[in-house]
């Protein structure tokens, strides 16, 4: 029997996984958009985004648009790879149960 893969704990967190999955489909996303999509609180969302940033999975860009601060989040190539690996491991762990 082949060894079962480990799930990446950084990606596995429910909110962090949602954030990476959201970011993988867009070019860049504002904090407010991520908050609206996940319905998470500002504090929780900020903390989870910081963890993803520290892991190198997400890049942050801060700028001013019409004198208003705007924080943009982008998934990095490492983050994209981590999510792909996570999905692969998840599918391997679930095996035949994936369709039930």
């Amino acid at each position, binding site marked *: 029997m082949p060894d079962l893969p480990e799930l990446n704990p950084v990606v596995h967190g*429910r*909110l962090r996984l949602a954030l990476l999955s*959201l970011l993988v*489909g867009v070019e860049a996303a504002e904090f407010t958009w991520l908050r609206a999509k996940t*319905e998470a609180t500002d504090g929780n969302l900020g903390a989870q985004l910081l963890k993803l940033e520290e892991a190198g999975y997400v890049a942050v860009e801060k700028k001013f648009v019409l004198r208003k601060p705007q924080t943009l989040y982008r998934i990095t190539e490492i983050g994209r790879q981590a999510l792909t690996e996570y999905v692969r491991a*998840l*599918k391997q762990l679930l095996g035949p149960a994936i369709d039930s």
Partner: protein
Amino acid sequence: MQDHTTKQELKDRLSLIESMIAEGRRNTERWGWMFVLWGVAYYVAMAWSAWGHSTRAWPVTMLIAVVVAIAFASLKAGNHPGTTLGRAIGSIWIALGISMFLLFLALGLSGRLTDQHLFAAVISAILGMANGASGLILRWKVQFACAAVWWVAAVATCFGTDSQGTIVFLVAIFLCQIAFGIYGVIAQAQERKRRGPIHA
């Protein structure tokens, strides 16, 4: 870690990924109201040109619809991030809008827009193309079904009497603009309600 993680939790993670990635499709559902707007605009233009016998009916109605669409689109766009998928779909509809506007404006001004069958067939074929391309890109069967309805309408309006052609065109507008648009708005609202907050 896996010892403590049930299969149900893992499946939950997988469906969470799928639901978040499905945001691309919701981009189009977000524009459900736009389909309704244009459906209503077609009805108004047809009614005006039929009962008012005015050659200005189509250009004026379409121009008003364009202004209303741009105004509402800029309000609704908000902070929604751009996606490659969204840009691809948007490009199709913008190109369609420009093509139709230029073609029918030129035909109207030159006085060559006299064949009602040809007019309905061309509009139906172009809308079939746009809905078909969008449905294939998004892998959205409902939108592809709309494309099929438009293609059937394009062929059907070439045959039969004027009134039969008009009925076919009116039915296609109702199904593919009004009903599909309302379906998009409802689907988006239900999805928003179904998905609760996501905690860490």
